[in-house]
């Protein structure tokens, strides 16, 4: 086995695959270590047997996964997320050429719920003025107000006060903007939660958030118009392909990956981390390999440094296997359905992400629906997700942690003082925009300048000549 280099520019621990590849492309010497035996940690996709075993909801001696066909036809995400087709992750994928190893497919629809219980209705989220006029989400007059709002968002220019409708756009609230167009509460709900993808309502009353909200709505609209059906795309064979693709990109640029490797000790000089001691467990039955190496900095997900992170919330999530599409979604083979918090008397939205055999994640005839939200109580997690389960109809199999929910971590410090730069946990949002913000944030903290996505591969030809 080859020697480990005596020093690396960066050691990356855990699920920070995008960062390792970006840093490798930028010429840094990167060592990426993961304690798991697979890429992506909690962001991996697993087969149905692994899922049963992970959640433990079967009787010993039984093999319930056998009735679901070939186990390897299943690639079930542990973290439910979709990509926005014009979003930052897509930009990173394209500009780093990771798209050479991945194939994407559209998610067929984007839906939102209005009302609750027996009165709940599900409707497509309108993405342009024409769809607003046809939408069942609004009455006849409201449709026209929505149409003029969407048209205004399209022509809005942050630097041109003539396009600001007389509002002081940098200091007003989003409520002021909605009031200007006379939009009803229900309309504000699906604009803010299903288009701007805010998880709570705090954006409405906060001063100065209007330009960002408008930008988010435009991202939604641009993403829809890129491929037509919904703003979301999804990789064939599941999200677990992303960390693998990024790992390959990193390797192609000289990055080194070690799976199945535990960190025994972080070495410090004064307050600053300067290296690690680690052990790679050998799966082939050989002796574990112990090694020590130095580094200029460490980038890690919070699970490697729990004392340097704080819990900011608890994620609730249930992975459900269905054998039918969701009611009200036009028999879509895939969709995102958002239940805005106020529709069901909550403070956090409930997300439902559905994918199926159209994305090579399960055999024909099955659908994988993941229901998620942020916990608002310390018990009754099943009840908190109940409005989501109501949308699913008959559920063949439900995988949900029985014990405590999944803590969401945030770093306590920037990392400048100890050279250990920690990312946030994946949050409850059903898309990657917040994750990509975090990638940019940790990059800025660690490298001292902004991550510029365009031009990452200047002068490099990734594909051989014909």
């Amino acid at each position, binding site marked *: 086995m*080859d020697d480990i280099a005596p020093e690396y520019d960066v050691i990356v621990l855990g699920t920070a695959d995008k960062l390792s590849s970006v840093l490798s492309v930028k010429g840094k010497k990167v060592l990426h270590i993961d304690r798991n035996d697979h*890429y992506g940690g909690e962001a991996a996709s697993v087969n149905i047997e692994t899922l049963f075993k992970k959640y433990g909801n079967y009787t010993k001696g039984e093999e319930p996964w056998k009735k679901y066909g070939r186990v390897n036809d299943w690639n079930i995400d542990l973290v439910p997320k979709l990509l926005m087709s*014009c979003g930052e992750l897509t930009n990173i994928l394209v500009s780093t050429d990771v798209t050479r190893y991945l194939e994407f*497919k559209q998610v067929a629809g984007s839906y939102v719920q209005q009302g609750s219980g027996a009165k709940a209705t599900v409707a497509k989220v309108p993405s342009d003025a024409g769809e607003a006029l046809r939408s069942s989400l609004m009455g006849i007059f409201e449709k026209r107000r929505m149409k003029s709002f969407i048209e205004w*968002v399209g022509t809005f220019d942050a630097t041109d006060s003539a396009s600001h409708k007389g509002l002081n756009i940098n200091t007003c609230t989003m409520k002021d903007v909605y009031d200007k167009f006379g939009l009803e509460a229900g309309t504000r709900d699906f604009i803010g939660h299903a288009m701007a993808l805010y998880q709570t309502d705090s954006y409405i009353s906060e001063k100065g958030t209007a330009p960002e909200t408008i930008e988010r709505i435009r991202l939604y609209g641009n993403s829809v118009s890129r491929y037509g059906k919904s703003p979301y795309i999804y990789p064939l064979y599941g999200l677990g392909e992303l960390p693998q693709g990024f790992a*390959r990109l990193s390797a192609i*640029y000289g990055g080194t*990956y070690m799976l199945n490797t535990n960190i025994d000790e972080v070495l410090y000089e004064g307050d600053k981390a300067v290296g690690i001691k680690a052990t790679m467990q050998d799966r082939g039955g050989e002796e574990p390999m112990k090694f020590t190496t130095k580094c200029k900095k460490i980038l890690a997900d919070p699970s490697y440094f729990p004392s340097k992170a704080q819990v900011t919330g608890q994620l609730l999530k249930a992975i459900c296997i269905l054998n039918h599409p969701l009611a009200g979604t036009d028999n879509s083979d895939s969709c995102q359905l958002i239940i805005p918090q106020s529709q069901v008397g909550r403070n956090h939205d409930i997300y439902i992400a559905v994918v199926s055999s159209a994305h090579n994640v399960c055999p024909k005839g099955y659908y994988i629906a993941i229901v998620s939200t942020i916990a608002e109580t310390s018990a009754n997690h099943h009840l908190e997700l109940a409005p989501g389960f109501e949308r699913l109809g008959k559920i063949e199999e439900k995988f949900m942690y029985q014990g405590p929910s999944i803590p969401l971590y945030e770093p306590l410090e920037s990392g400048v003082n100890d050279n250990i730069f920690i990312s946030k946990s994946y949050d409850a949002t059903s898309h990657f925009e917040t994750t990509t913000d975090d990638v940019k944030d940790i990059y800025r903290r660690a490298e001292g300048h902004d991550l510029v996505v365009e031009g990452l591969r200047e002068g490099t030809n990734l594909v051989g000549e*014909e």
Partner: protein
Amino acid sequence: MAARGPAGSRVGNSRFAQFKLVLLGESAVGKSSIVLRFVKDQFDSYRESTIGAAFLTQTISLDENTTVKFEIWDTAGQERYKSLAPMYYRNANCAVVVYDITQAASLDKAKQWVKELQRQANENIIIALAGNKLDLVTEQPDKRAIQTADAEAYAREAGLLFFETSAKTAENVRELFTSIAKKLPLDQAGPRNPRSGGRGGVELRPDTPGTQAGGPCSC
């Protein structure tokens, strides 16, 4: 993108088929050198571990009517710490498992890779075993650590194609790839390679100026 053409097509009497080929084997047995010889007809004695190419492509004409294009994936060094991902094997139609005929242990490693392929890859994958560095034993016969007959017997038993090759002198390199091409099911190329079009996937391209500018009502 180069890899997204039609995977299999037939125009008149001529056939064109494209296949994904993966390389496996211990570090420093000459995997990349074999590819470099096959694709560019070059050899570099001091070649370092593979850096820089996502995959290479090379086309072989089997006869005047039949063309096979290989999309060749190198390990990019990910075999070193056993960190090759399932993605590497996904939809691979064929594989070349390489060992070094002057290093006894490298054939044992090759056998492990064959097992790994049978576990991870398509059931019908075509596997070729290549004993590389034939040039070294031509110069100094006592350097040989693995007898041809032994490796050949293993290959026959395991159902593998078998060649002893030299990336340095080019001996048997083209023959290796040609014999793989001949064994591939040319008429079934399409459905076995979903990366190559026809599945309704979306093409991600860098935006042309203006795509981002219009806002929701740009359509």
